[in-house]
Structures are given as C-alpha cells and as structure tokens.
C-alpha cells in the first residue's frame, strides 16, 4: 500500500498495472460503443414501426423497454469503470447507491400520476380528448365501441 504524503489517512490501492488498465478501458469503450449502436438500431426500428400502418404498439413498447435496460447497463459501466466506483470500499459505494434507489419510487409514482391525469381528462374533458387524441387511436377506440352500441340497441 502506497501512502500519500499529503493525506496520510488515505491509502491508494486501486492502481492496476498499466497493461491491465489499458485493456480494461479499451474493453469498456468498445462495450459502450456497441451498446450505443444497438440502441440506435432499436431507435430506427421503432421509427420504421411508427411509420407503417400496422398496429405494433406492444412490440414498440417492448423495444423501448429493452433500450431502457441497455441504458442502465451503459450507466453501470460508466460509473463502475470510468468513475472507479467499483474499486471503492463497499460502505462508500452503498452511501451513493442506496439513496439512488429512491428513483424506483420516484419514477413509478410520477409516471403513474401523469397517466392517471390523462385518463381523468379523457373521461371528463371531451374537448381535450377530441382535440388531442391521434386519429389512429380514435379509430381503434371506435372499433371497440361499436359492438357495445349494438348490444345496447338490442336491449
């Protein structure tokens, strides 16, 4: 262990050999670039699916989910290798990572809130619904509503 002369209480352990360091950085750089290229591929696929008339909403949602997971992988590599957080003492890592778990609640709560607001507005504010609902969605809803109307007519 090498002790710093300025900060005697700090010991610097995480210094890999030069070759090992270069190999690790090269590997991470390639990994980040490859993930980015895959993400771009998904982005362009989503664009193609949006343009076609076929209804592929679930597939688009699936691709968006995959892109989110790939982004988290990228974030992990940047923080762990480039920022060397992975080489720190476990207690120190925890003081950073544990507070960040708040994001799990944060994202779910606020996105669900936005979604609920949309549903309430569509239900009670017909003007909002008529002026903002895309044509595709409206057609889908009408297709759903027709059988219900027929039933009502029979009764």
């Amino acid at each position, binding site marked *: 262990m090498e002790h*710093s002369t*300025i*900060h005697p*209480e*700090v*010991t*610097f*352990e995480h*210094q890999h050999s030069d070759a090992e*360091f270069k190999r690790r*950085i090269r590997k991470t*750089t390639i990994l*980040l*670039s490859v993930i*980015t290229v895959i*993400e*771009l591929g*998904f*982005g*362009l696929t*989503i*664009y193609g699916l949006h343009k076609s008339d076929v209804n592929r909403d679930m597939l688009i949602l699936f691709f*968006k989910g995959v*892109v989110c997971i790939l*982004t988290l992988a*990228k*974030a992990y590599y*940047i*923080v762990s290798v*480039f*920022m060397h*957080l992975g080489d*720190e*003492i476990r*207690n*120190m890592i925890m*003081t*950073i990572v544990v*507070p*960040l778990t*708040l*994001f799990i609640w*944060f*994202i779910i709560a*606020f*996105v*669900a*809130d*936005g*979604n609920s*607001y*949309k549903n309430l*507005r569509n239900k009670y504010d017909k003007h*909002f*619904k008529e002026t*903002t*609902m*895309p*044509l595709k*969605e409206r057609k889908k809803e009408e297709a759903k509503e027709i059988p219900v109307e027929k039933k009502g007519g029979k009764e």
Partner: protein
Amino acid sequence: MATQATVHQTKWWSGGKSPFNMEYGKLMMWYFLMSDAFTFGAFLISYGSIRFSQNFWPDPNVVFNAFPGAGHANLPLAFVSVMTFILIISSVTMVLAVHAGHKGDRRGVIKWIAWTIVGGLAFLGCQAWEWHHLLTGEHVVLANDKLDLAVQNMRGNPWGELVENHAKLTAALNNTPHDALVQIVHSHDHSHTLKELSAMSDAQLRAMIDPAELHIREKGPVAFGGYFFGITGFHGFHVFSGVIINTVMLIMTQKGVFDRKGHYLMIEKAGLYWHFVDLVWVFVFLCFYLI
C-alpha cells in the same frame, strides 16, 4: 478469531484512517454528483409525467432528423449519435488523463485533458447547431383551420399529428390570409423575393402551394419545447462548466501546481464531474431521442 475480526473492522472508524479510504474533497464530489443526479432525475421524471399525461407526443425521429450540411435529407438519429460518440470519446480521454495523473505524468495529463476540452467544445458546438436548427427551421402547420408557419420554441411545437385529410387542407389553404401565404411560399421556393411574392394575388400564391407535398402537421404539445430546451440546456450548462473546470486544470497542470502538491487528486475530481456529464447525457439521449 471472531473478536480479532471485529477489532480489525472497527479500526477504520477509530481515527487515523479514512473510513472510506478516500480523500475528503473526492468524497464530497461524489455526494455533490449524487445530489445533481436527483436534480436531473427530477427534471426528466417531470418530463415523463407530462408526457404520460398527453394523448399525443411527437415522434423524436421526426423532430431530430437533420444533419449539418445535408439540407432537408431525412436522417433520424444521425446527428445525435455523433454527439453521443463525442461525449463517450471525451470520457475516455478523461480516464486517460486521470490515469496519467496517478503516475504523476505531467505531459500525459496535459495531452489528454486538452483532448477532453476539445471533445467538450465539439459537443457544445453540435448542441448550438441543433438548437439553432430547431429555433429557426420553419414548418407549415394547420392551426385554427388556417395554414401558418411555426418554429420549435418555448411557445409552440410544429410536430403535431400529420394531416392526411386533403379536403381539410384545401379548405385551410383557402382560409389562409395573404401574408401567411407569402411566407409559406417563400419558405420552400426561393426563386422569388418576398417583394415579388407580396405583389402577387392570393389565387396565384395558392396555386404555388401543394398541401399534399408539404407534410403539413397540426400543432403539437407546447410542453415539448420547454422540456427539451430546459433539460438539454441544463445539461449543456454542465458541459460548459466542465470545459471551464478542465481548462483551469490544464492551466494548473502546466504551471506545475500538482507537481508541487505531490499528487494529481484535483484531476481525479474534475474527472468525476466530467464522467457525470457523460452519464447524464446517456439518460437525456434515452428520454428525448430514443423513446
């Protein structure tokens, strides 16, 4: 054995040693970055919340499809991927600068931090071009049963739903006043000056506009502009301050300040900040351009 292990563990906290084996300034940089992550997270989640509250949201591939020098070519995601790679590469050069600092290699630090500054400036240049393109690019939109020109700014969004109802577009064209007609023709036909166009009759101008060819859209959600410029602007401000910090580091390295101190820990702290800027971009890229 068990008691020995406990003694060994508690020794970290009994003084004389840094329990996290980390210099104070670097630890505080980590906590600052964590708080900054919450600031960015709050902005992005607020954007997500608004997006989920809308029935329609513009497709990013339609909005961000321009490339410098490519004119009106439709190149979705191309320019933003260039920006992303610039930041990834500048992050790598920063890692190399920090590594050179570990070894006390002054020339190495100077070389790699200079490249990092170049990368940061290149990114800012790209962002300036993109903002300029969005703020000045005029698009024909259908609003209030009239045709009009709109740009992407904080007050309006020209990326609503594509209008494919030709009867509606023809009716809107006939409702469009003279001044708007002049501007619309001028936006895509540069063979006449504004003065010549102003002198023409409405019927002549209408004959020069083919609504089917212009990909006319309705107006989109206004919040799009506020969130896009707000969040990419806040990120751009971080890049800018990162470039300033790196420039200060470069000057200090050149003056031999760190050699006299005996360590290059300042470079490490600047490096953490720079990597964080790259990290945030990964999420901005995800939220605004990919999904």
